[in-house]
């Protein structure tokens, strides 16, 4: 389809109805009340009972009034996360250990599955069924490359040294 720049806008429903010449770049921080100078001056909501481990940023003094309880830290990844939360959001010592913990956590997840007697179906989890339906050539290529790389690796590793 050809690109067109409209000469008039009558065909565009709602054109200009939210135009606001007073929209200045500080919006919506313009409603300052000076309460911000008083720190935690607001009437805090009721505190959710803290009955799971919640890591909190050292850039704040407390746990927020409500918090998520999904997947509390555990295992080796949990230890790494606890270390990360000793450092501020301003530090790589916060973020890089968290990324590392995420990767360790993936291995822990597989071990957990195996411990329950279930082998994770990686192909299903990766949604490769959708590839079979919508991108069959791509899938065949992907599997072909994987087979090639695996074969090459096996050959290299099993080759007798001269």
């Amino acid at each position, binding site marked *: 389809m050809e690109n067109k*720049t409209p000469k008039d806008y009558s065909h565009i429903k709602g054109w*200009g109805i939210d*135009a606001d010449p007073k*929209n200045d770049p500080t919006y919506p*921080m313009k409603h300052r009340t000076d309460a911000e100078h008083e720190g935690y001056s607001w009437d805090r909501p009721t505190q959710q009972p803290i009955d799971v481990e919640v890591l909190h940023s050292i850039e704040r003094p407390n746990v927020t009034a409500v918090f998520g309880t999904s997947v509390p830290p555990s295992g080796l990844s949990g230890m790494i996360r606890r270390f990360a939360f000793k450092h501020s959001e301003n530090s790589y010592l916060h*973020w890089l250990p968290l990324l590392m913990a995420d990767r360790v956590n993936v291995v822990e997840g597989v071990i957990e599955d195996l411990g329950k007697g279930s082998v994770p179906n990686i192909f299903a989890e990766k949604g490769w069924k959708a590839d079979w339906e919508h991108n069959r050539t791509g899938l065949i290529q992907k599997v072909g490359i994987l087979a090639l790389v695996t074969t090459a690796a096996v050959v290299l590793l099993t080759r007798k040294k001269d």
Partner: protein
Amino acid sequence: MNYRGPQRVRIDEKPEPKILHPEDAIVRVTRSCICGSDLHLYNGNVPDTRVGTTFGHEFIGEVIEIGSEVQKLKVGDMVIVPFNIACGKCHFCKQGLFGNCHESNSQATAVGAIFGYSHTAGGYDGGQAEYVRVPYADVGPTVIPEGMDPDDAVLLTDVVPTAYQAAEMGGIQKGDTVVIFGAGPIGIMAARCCWLFGAGRVIVIDKIEYRLEFVRNYANCEAYNYEEMDDPVVFIKKTTDWMGADVVIDAVGAEATGNLMQTITGRKLLLQAGSATAAHWAVNSVKKGGIVSIVGVYGPTDNLFPLGNVLNKGLTIRANQAAVKRHLPRLIEHVQNGILNPKALITHRVPLEDVADAYHIFSEKLDNCIKPVLIPPTAR
């Protein structure tokens, strides 16, 4: 839905959520979308994304239980649940910055809490599930007006408000030329919203042909494939009489393609917080003194970004997570009046049980996918 590692998700049984705070509600999910920003989680790019987490921050559903302090909602209400969790009481919520609430995310101060968006965004399970715990139920959730199509309603949780705020933050004045990088759901809707603010010309840049074709038709705008250009910045300069656009919107974020170095360092090696290609192009293609509006999501660390040009061109950069609650009244009006038609973006309606396939289709842009919505068994 259960995250198992980069590009691995599956369906698992979890205990049903409980009321943990007197302002909580439990919602039975009836629609839940996969957002482009979920792909950052899916690809393992967001720090503190724990195995076992349920994603999903774009959902609607029925209130089935309320906490003792909930007054505005009642059991049986069908609600739009904004993606941000906001207390309504802190300094930031009082300013209308519902995306920056200070009483919902213990793990980070730089971002408010978001449903199902890693522990960096609060550690809440999300709505790609049958049931979900919704904190501060009197603040965020909004009852779906009678007669509103649920497919419209679910896109009011994030896509439409984020796109609208992208245009709003652009400070668009009548006749302005606006360039939008990204023809995903946000970019498409942002193109539509820019007209509402009186844009004189709207140009969308992407590389996915079916999406460019869609946005041309949907938003009555120009749309170009950057892979057919030598340099998208030079293209924009040329098409704006060598001045640059008045406003440029980054609607891509961390998964951007188009620059090999950014892709390798930002997406493959994770040496920066995602590929900043779109933000880079935005700064370089906006007019001197212009405004760059960023709604594309990046990680919490650092990005390669032309800060010197921001200074030398005297640019204003405006960015935020959308304050969904602030926009909802106006946007509901626009949907009801037929000004905006969000549901047209939905291309795939997928049973929740097939979540892994839905993620893969969306991530790989298979089957001309623009927006997938997951439908739990209890809602079918």
